[in-house]
């Protein structure tokens, strides 16, 4: 069953008359882990925001769970994680995680119980009364993930969530995220700059090309779950990485050198 259907979506920004996305068609199945990858300006973040009804399409339709993206947002079908953890400094870790639960009107006991579970899930038990600035970047992002998952949304939207973290923290959080995903079986849309991260995490990689943003190709990742540290050393892993890289190169000849570097 498809959770997200994107049909003929075009997005033009009024400022500068930029066509961020042109005629995008894409279907996401329930329980999929889909990465959107591409160089800067390919509209991958915009596509994520279109799914989450944080921006509206200029043309075309986004359907989520059989309803409009707007209705899905009102029904709280989305958990969103940004590159910045967007934690509120005046709230403790617990209260940050409980924020969406408060908005949903859960009572205190139910909130506390869920927060406890989420802390366990992201392995932050013992930090409930810390404030965000007392945590490392990786821990902050784990709180952000716990918050996004706390109300069991149908869809988890992640916009370069580990982009600001160092390589080692990023790889550890990749493993943790996969473990969480396999436990909860929610559908994940994951925007990233990193080819290896996209291949390692996803069941499918959507490769995008810039100006205007288009889908350059889809790469199904047929590596078995659960994926482990060894997965990164699997020859097939490298084949898939190469495949994604080729697609990026094919459609991105006019990329600027520094953007190549970001794509790696």
């Amino acid at each position: 069953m498809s959770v997200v259907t994107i049909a003929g979506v075009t997005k033009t920004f009024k400022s500068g008359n930029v066509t961020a996305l042109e005629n995008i068609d894409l279907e996401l199945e329930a329980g999929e882990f889909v990465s959107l990858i591409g160089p800067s300006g390919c509209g991958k973040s915009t596509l994520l925001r279109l799914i989450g009804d944080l921006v509206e399409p200029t043309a075309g339709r986004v359907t989520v769970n059989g309803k409009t993206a707007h209705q899905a947002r009102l029904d709280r079908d989305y958990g969103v994680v940004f590159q910045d953890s967007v934690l509120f400094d005046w709230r403790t870790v617990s209260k940050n995680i409980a924020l969406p639960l408060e908005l949903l009107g859960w009572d205190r006991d139910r909130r506390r119980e869920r927060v406890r579970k989420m802390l366990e899930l992201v392995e932050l038990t013992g930090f409930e009364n810390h404030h965000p600035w007392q945590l490392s970047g990786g821990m902050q992002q784990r709180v952000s993930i716990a918050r996004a998952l706390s109300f069991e949304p149908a869809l988890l939207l992640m916009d370069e969530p580990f982009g600001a973290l160092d390589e080692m923290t990023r790889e550890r959080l990749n493993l943790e995220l996969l473990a969480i995903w396999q436990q909860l079986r929610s559908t994940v849309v994951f925007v990233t700059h990193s080819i290896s991260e996209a291949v390692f995490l996803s069941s499918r990689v959507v490769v995008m090309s810039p100006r205007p943003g288009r889908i350059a190709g889809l790469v199904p990742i047929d590596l078995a779950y659960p994926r482990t540290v060894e997965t990164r050393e699997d020859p097939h892993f490298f084949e898939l990485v190469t495949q994604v890289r080729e697609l990026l190169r094919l459609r991105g000849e006019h990329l600027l050198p520094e953007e190549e570097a970001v794509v790696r």
Partner: protein
Amino acid sequence: MTVRVARQLAEWLPPLVVLVGVLAIWQGAIVAFHIQQFLLPKPTAIAQAFWHERHTLWPAGWYTFKEALGGFFGGSLLGFAFAVFAARFRAAGSALLPIAIAANAVPIIAFAPIANIWFDPLSPRSKMAIAGVLCFFPVMVNTLRGLTSVRPPQLELMRSYAAGEIEIFRRVRLPTALPYIFTALKVASVLSMIGAIVGEYFGGAFNALGVLINSDAQIFDFTTAWAGIAVASLLGIALYLAVSLTERAVVRWAPEARDS
């Protein structure tokens, strides 16, 4: 506990030393250069007047302090309300803001006699109006700045939860603005005392501090006038400290509070 006391002491000691030093230099300079006491009385003389006149000065100070408080709360509340309105309805806000800025540019000295006529010079309400006008602007500008300095991802996050404007205000905008608001309230606390006293210079109740300072100066009783000024300063500082303590209790997450 002892660490806490030591830290408090370390915080208070330097300004205390400076204060004592300034008073000593002041006293010494008057003695050394034979400065006339109507130009600048000795701190010791002021302290004497402060003590002798305590039964008139403090009740007068209290009377004026209440006026300042009324202006402080009234003006700050209006400033806050205006900022909330301007932050919510940007168009209306940008139409009204230049007028508020222009009104703020009117010298309070010019406004004081007018306020006295509008609201009966003998009534505390006229002084509250003057103090309130002084407090309004800093609170309004800072609150508006705070309410609108919410980072876009925070709003995006709240929108992804389908949170309404009121929820966003309560859970994001107001907490973001609180440090700004307290900065403004500290400025306003001192301004309110100034406003009340300036108002009294243009006529006020017989037992008001500003009237007292003014009449003492006119009969060349400068030491008592200075003692009155000291009372006014102390009360202004007291209000400032009260706001600071409230801030510490309320804004625990602000960077300044993070070390303690």
